[in-house]
């Protein structure tokens, strides 16, 4: 990744220190609310945004959102500080900072929103800004591909989530989370809501089978991975599940879905973690394991399980962010992240080694670190997880043992033994790159030794998730009990797994992943489908477009006629004279001749016949003015066409001699339907109020005896004005086109 330290000034210039200061100030602001929230208060602010839709911007600060907000801003500060050194010299550093701030805004909004629609908006903000961050190295094809993959997977889940939100709004009658009082479990929409919300949460939190995007997202710069893919974004799904637990949780479908998906993800991911040689990938898979574990324990839903989940949430955020940042330092200091190459870095990078040791011990769950407490409480909760006790305990056990081995791969092997040759001579990182990880790692130790401080966060968070008060008492030593014995067995198995991990990896490498190629194949199908559809719809043939348009018209008309059950009266009337017959003959014969002739002159003449026929109809039914206009226009038309014919070719016989059966069929259908509809229209009584108004007022008000003329030039004069304007514009357009011809031929 970035290799330069030459920043635009201390802390990477203004962009750098501003980006550090913002999360730091926010962290302070959130921290000052800690005592009140720890005491059980829920702070809320509310502003109307779209009152008509019931959308408000509300901030809800309870234990859950405060825990997340503190993690987001606290780890955010560490990450931005780290980035000043890691990316400070990069030409796109300012852009990076903007993306990161946008992401932080989205994430904070997500966890603070009290309104589901607002929450969704911020949810999408994190999706889009994470796309930009993952694709930060945009000149690499792999980076772009992986960013797009993350965007499509989480974006699709987001759409499902939106549908779920709308259903929740319909079921609960409100979008305000704190106002959804009763559980929705008995509502008929419960199952669809559950499926849609879980689709959103599982894609965001990368549960199997949507897990594949997260390891690929490691194409992002390391600070981004540390921030998005360990501490914040991927926990968005976990947050959502925790937040919805009071209204959606506690049912059998909820329990079994979360417990099985979470358990499978946890075990599957920790097995794949052992397979990796890139230590950043190892961490990516252990993140999946943590997400699976969190989902599983939220699914279990007992107060013990929720307490364990909230504790593990803090544990994981601290050690995982520290480890990711540590790996960035190693990558930076040695030029490689290959676990099979790196050895003996402890002497060259003592502070990094310290971070790695503390964080990895917490990850492995070794006392007296915070991770040990997290693991102990998970075992305790798992042992009480009826009716799936065996499954939850086995999953937790397998995942924890594999985690122990993964911790060894990431933090023991690279730092011990003899210093190996690396692309860059191993050297320690800069101060800004070490402060954050050191603090985070120290937190893991400090909270392990003094767990009372963690209680202040865990207790209100667990209360918010459970919906009731939860007794939280964290301690390091709980006496000799089943959980402790399980822990000791975990260490033993984990140690063995670490010792044989080389052989395990060789064996695992024979497995081929089917998810990523499957994804590429899926995208290929989508692209092929789109191409096929475009070829079918967008043929580029005018005829085809017109055909589809008319066919649609025919279908819509036929459907309407059929639905309305129209039946016009078909009386010919008794006052039929010879003139009616002759006009009918004139017009139909003329129209048929225009349609089927191959001679231009015949066509023009027949057009004239039709026009005159129509004028005759106007005369017969008391419209002399219209008839005069019609005749005038008809003559003009014929003259214009005749003039144009001098310059235009003959109608091509080659492709018109065949009768176009389908076109004719469509034409007959539309013509028949028009006749049918017109007959029905003429059957219905006519509302004559407007006509009567014109008849009464024509002479007294407008002083005109020809009512049609009065309407045109007086009552509806603006219409006539518009009509003149249309003709003028058409004339101007025609003039411009003709003038262009002359210039073109010169």
């Amino acid at each position: 990744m970035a290799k330069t330290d030459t920043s635009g000034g201390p802390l990477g210039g203004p962009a750098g220190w501003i980006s550090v200061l913002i999360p730091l100030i926010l962290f302070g602001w959130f921290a000052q609310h800690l005592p009140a929230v720890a005491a059980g208060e829920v702070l809320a602010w509310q502003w109307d945004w779209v009152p008509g839709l019931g959308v408000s911007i509300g901030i809800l600060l309870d234990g859950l959102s405060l825990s997340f907000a503190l993690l987001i801003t606290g780890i955010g500060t560490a990450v931005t500080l780290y980035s000043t050194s890691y990316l400070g010299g990069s030409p796109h550093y300012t852009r990076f900072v903007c993306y990161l701030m946008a992401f932080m805004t989205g994430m904070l909004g997500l966890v603070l929103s009290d309104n589901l629609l607002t929450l969704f908006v911020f949810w999408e903000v994190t999706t889009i800004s994470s796309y930009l961050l993952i694709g930060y190295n945009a000149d690499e094809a792999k980076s772009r591909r992986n960013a797009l993959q993350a965007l499509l997977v989480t974006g699709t889940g987001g759409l499902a989530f939106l549908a779920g939100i709308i259903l929740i709004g319909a079921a609960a009658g409100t979008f305000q989370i704190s106002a959804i009082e009763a559980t929705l479990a008995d509502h008929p929409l419960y199952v669809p809501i559950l499926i849609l919300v879980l689709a959103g949460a599982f894609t965001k939190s990368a549960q199997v089978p949507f897990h594949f995007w997260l390891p690929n997202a490691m194409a992002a710069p390391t600070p981004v991975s540390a921030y998005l893919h360990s501490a914040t974004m991927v926990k968005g799904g976990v947050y959502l599940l925790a937040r919805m637990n009071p209204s959606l949780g506690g049912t059998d479908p909820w329990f079994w879905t979360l417990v099985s998906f979470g358990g499978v993800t946890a075990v599957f991911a920790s097995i794949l973690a052992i397979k990796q040689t890139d230590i950043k990938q190892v961490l990516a898979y252990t993140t999946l394991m943590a997400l699976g574990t969190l989902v599983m324990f939220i699914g279990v839903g007992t107060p013990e399980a929720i307490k364990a989940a909230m504790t593990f949430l803090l544990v994981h955020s601290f050690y995982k962010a520290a480890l990711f940042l540590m790996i960035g330092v190693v990558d930076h200091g040695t030029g490689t992240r290959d676990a099979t190459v790196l050895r003996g870095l402890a002497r060259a990078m003592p502070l990094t080694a310290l971070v790695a040791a503390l964080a990895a011990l917490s990850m492995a769950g070794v006392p007296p670190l915070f991770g040990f407490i997290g693991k102990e409480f998970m075992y305790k909760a798992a042992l009480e997880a009826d009716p799936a006790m065996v499954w939850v305990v086995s999953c937790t056990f397998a995942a924890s043992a594999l985690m122990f081995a993964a911790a060894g791969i990431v933090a023991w092997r690279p730092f011990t033994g003899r210093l190996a040759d690396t692309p860059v001579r191993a050297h320690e990182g800069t101060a800004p790159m070490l402060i954050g990880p050191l603090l985070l790692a120290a937190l893991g130790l400090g909270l392990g030794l003094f767990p009372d401080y963690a209680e202040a966060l865990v207790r209100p968070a667990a209360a918010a998730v459970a919906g009731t008060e939860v007794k939280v008492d964290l301690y390091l030593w709980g006496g000799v009990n089943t959980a402790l014995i399980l822990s000791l067995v975990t260490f033993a198995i984990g140690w063995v797994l670490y010792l044989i991990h080389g052989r395990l990896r060789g064996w695992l490498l024979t497995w081929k992943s089917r998810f990523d190629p499957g994804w590429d194949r899926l995208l290929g199908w989508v692209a092929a489908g789109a191409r096929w559809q475009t070829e079918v719809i967008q043929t580029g043939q005018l005829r085809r477009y017109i055909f589809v348009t008319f066919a649609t018209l025919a279908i819509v008309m036929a459907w309407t006629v059929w639905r309305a059950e129209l039946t016009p009266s078909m009386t010919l009337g008794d006052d039929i004279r010879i003139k009616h017959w002759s006009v009918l003959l004139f017009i139909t014969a003329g129209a048929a001749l225009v349609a089927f002739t191959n001679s231009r002159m015949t066509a023009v003449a027949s057009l004239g016949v039709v026009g005159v026929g129509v004028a005759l109809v106007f005369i017969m039914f008391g419209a002399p003015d219209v008839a005069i206009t019609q005749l005038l226009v008809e003559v003009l038309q014929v003259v214009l066409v005749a003039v144009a014919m001098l310059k235009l070719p003959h109608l091509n016989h080659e492709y018109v001699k065949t009768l176009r059966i389908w076109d004719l069929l469509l034409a007959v259908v539309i013509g028949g339907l028009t006749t049918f509809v017109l007959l029905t229209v003429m059957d219905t009584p006519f509302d004559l109020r407007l006509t009567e108004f014109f008849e009464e007022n024509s002479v007294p008000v407008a002083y005109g005896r020809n009512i049609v003329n009065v309407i045109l030039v007086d009552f509806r004069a603006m219409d006539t004005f518009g009509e003149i304007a249309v003709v003028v514009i058409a004339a101007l357009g025609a003039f411009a086109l003709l003038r262009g011809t002359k210039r073109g031929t010169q």
Partner: protein
Amino acid sequence: MEVFVAIMVGALVTASVYLMLARSVLRFLFGLVLLSNAANLLIFAAGGLTPEAPPLVAEGAYAPPEGVANALPQALVLTAIVIGFGLFAFALVLIYRGYQNLGTLDSEQMRLAEPPESDPQPSTPQMSPMAELSK
């Protein structure tokens, strides 16, 4: 009489749709003219047909006699005729200009903006799929 006019309109619409589906843009133009005639007749007929009684007010009277033709659709059709003529004139010039520039009146050979991607013989006019079906 209503049936007569309705059949006329139907015949005009049929002919115009058939013409507008043709490949020659000149035929399309003829179809356009027939369609505007059909539309005018339709509006006129939909307002009610009254034989041989134009809506005029006699000298000295304040209102027309009972049973004159409906004046409103006449006014609307009058406007429509003129606008239809404007459309026709512009379309004609457009076709003329298109022929000047592209050298063809066949809409399927007017592919300057979207040339067919893999057309083996771009010069020979292809049968439309619908025409092929009908064979």
